[in-house]
């Protein structure tokens, strides 16, 4: 199960991870909806793009710009969080959405826990595969920790100060009311 668009749904996709014995150019990519590692995609682009649907995943030390020409080809792009203290995935997501214009499903996977979800949805993730040993229902609650935010990110194009009329100091004659 994954969280997608704020609801719990069945996961139709399978994530392909390479074992030590596998090499990107020879590993078997099963039929069906598969999310392949970036290296597999880069080496077997011609073959894989024939498929009706394909996904790719990035490790946090890989660059989203590598997919600059390709983003429109993916139904899903996933970012793998090796540890939840590794915050590179947030900038990867932001760049995929804001700079590379990716509009498909952007999924956070790996060490994904409830308390990160609020930030993750802000930078552009719309799907979450929480760590399997944790309750997905609990994780879902994390999306609603805050009802307002100050700054822009992918989800909110306008900062608070442009969105609403905020109160100044009445003593300075700036009440805005």
């Amino acid at each position: 199960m994954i969280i997608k668009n704020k609801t719990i749904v069945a996961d139709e996709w399978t994530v392909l991870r390479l074992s030590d014995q596998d090499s990107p150019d020879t590993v078997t990519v099963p039929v069906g909806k598969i999310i392949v590692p970036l290296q597999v995609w880069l080496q077997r682009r011609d073959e894989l793009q024939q498929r009706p649907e394909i996904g790719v995943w990035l490790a946090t030390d890989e660059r989203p710009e590598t997919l600059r020409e390709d983003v429109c080809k993916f139904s899903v792009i996933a970012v793998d969080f090796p540890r939840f203290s590794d915050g590179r995935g947030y900038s990867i997501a932001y760049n995929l959405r804001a700079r590379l214009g990716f509009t498909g499903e952007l999924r956070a996977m790996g060490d994904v826990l409830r308390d990160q979800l609020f930030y993750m949805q802000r930078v552009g993730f719309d799907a979450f595969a929480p760590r399997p040993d944790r309750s997905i229902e609990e994780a879902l609650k994390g999306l609603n920790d805050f009802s307002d935010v100050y700054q822009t990110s992918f989800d909110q194009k306008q900062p608070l100060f442009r969105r609403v009329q905020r109160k100044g100091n009445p003593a300075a004659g700036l009440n805005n009311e």
Partner: protein
Amino acid sequence: MYRYDEYDQHIVNERVEQFRDQVRRRLSGELTEEEFMPLRLQNGLYMQIHGYMLRIAVPYGLVSSKQMRMFAHIARTYDRGYGHFTTRQNIQFNWLKLQDTPNILADLASVEMHAIQTSGNCVRNITSDEYAGVAQDEVVDPRPYAEVLRQWSTFHPEFAYLPRKFKIAISGGQQDRAAIYAHDIGLSATRNAQGEIGFRVLVGGGLGRTPIIGSVICEFVPWQHILTYVESILRIYNQYGRRDNKYKARIKILVKALGIEEFKRQVEADWADIKDGPGTLTAEEVRRVTSFFIDPDYEILTDHDSKLSEFKADSRSFSNWMLRNVKPHRVPGYAIVVLSLKKPGQPPGDATAEQMEAIADLADRYSYGEARITHQQNLVLADVRQKDLIRLWQEASIHELTSPNIGLLTDIISCPGAEFCTLANARSIPLAKMIAERFENLDFQHDIGEITLNISGCVNACGQHHIGNIGITGVEKKDHDEWYQVSLGGAEGNESSIGKIIGPSFTFNQVPEVINRLLQVYLRERMEAERFIDTVRRIGHAPFKEYVYATEFVAEDQDVDKHVIVPAQYSVPYYSPRF
């Protein structure tokens, strides 16, 4: 000062509830300590030797009397009756219980305060000039921009899990009083030839294991663009800062590795995409935030008060205090007063609940209900009428807040040290006490004049030892004894420099004598009104080094443990690493 509107209040209230639930999940075992750690750290909660330490954010050091009374309440209700003001203008409480922390945060929220991002690998509390708005040399009041940056950085979704902590300081005077050269980003608010406001932006400064003075990345970023420019710096750092070694993870290492030119190129390539976008600051927002920092209703007064001169002539203690603790104000008839938290024999930066309440009362009576915390761990009343100085001095003296030692030898900056902190190798506070007691003689201190003495219990440099004229660091030794390195020649401000270690380290009891020897060389070599740091710069380290190591240290049969703080008496807190 800035007041919350309903949005600010709502966001802080939601944070309290979020943290309450996180603590509940930790106590029920739903969260492991490993998972809870980054969550509690983003709320300023550290696990220390005796219990949990909570660091409360005091945005750019500005605090109202109401908030100060809340600190007193927290000290009394949840702690042991005192708190510790820090070099980043915050306050921390060292003896808390985990299960109390959600209620403490709720108490804080009721006075528009929080502990958001006071630790963890995120953007920390923004610090600024303690004399902002009242300094005679001010070019631009930095407080509105500090507040705008506070809001921008609060819960920034992309930068909550950076490679390492991230500190921003902002100053607006001709003299830097916010140590901007020692921060990850240092901002100097200024005006260009056309009179427009902008920022000179420094990046990659910092202390710790690898002390580096910040480099200029841009001479002038117009005010509209400061948020997006800072955002791009953080985005480059978040992606490329090292994560394999925590000692090489600060932005200064990245800037050094790439070189400032290449780092600037990458930042500005990112910035090109968001510059002039919706993140651009608006004149309306600056006007709104600035409206909270308008001048109070100053009276029309003159600078000369005959009573003051008479009293100064009569009372030597008062005139000493006037000389060291009272600073010129930009408005005639007013003065800036520094209340010293450095009474010799007391831990630097500590204040009791009674003192906090006294400070709140003094602020209400003499300084429009506001106070500031300085990065030298003292407190400031920024708007005192000169004709009130005598009464203020008399009242503050009752609460031991008038040690006339600001900028002098006993105005020591110190971290909490090994009695409290799991990182420290050696004690800091007892050493500070011992040094202050040794040099308590005021005539001697005044004769030595301006000098800074900074103590850190380890290389992490919370006591900013690198930028002390004399710096002391607790160092690791195989035998687990306490040893201290002494460095010389550090300074903050416009002429920032990093001190150099003078040689092999010393024992706890030798340090005061080492300092004495350094001072003796200064007294011998100084020319006229030369400050300690100027003599060091003129004659170099050699004469100091030579004299310090020339003769043996007489073994002192002091009871080494006489200053040790008795460990916590209450039951052992949850999951304390040392028990």
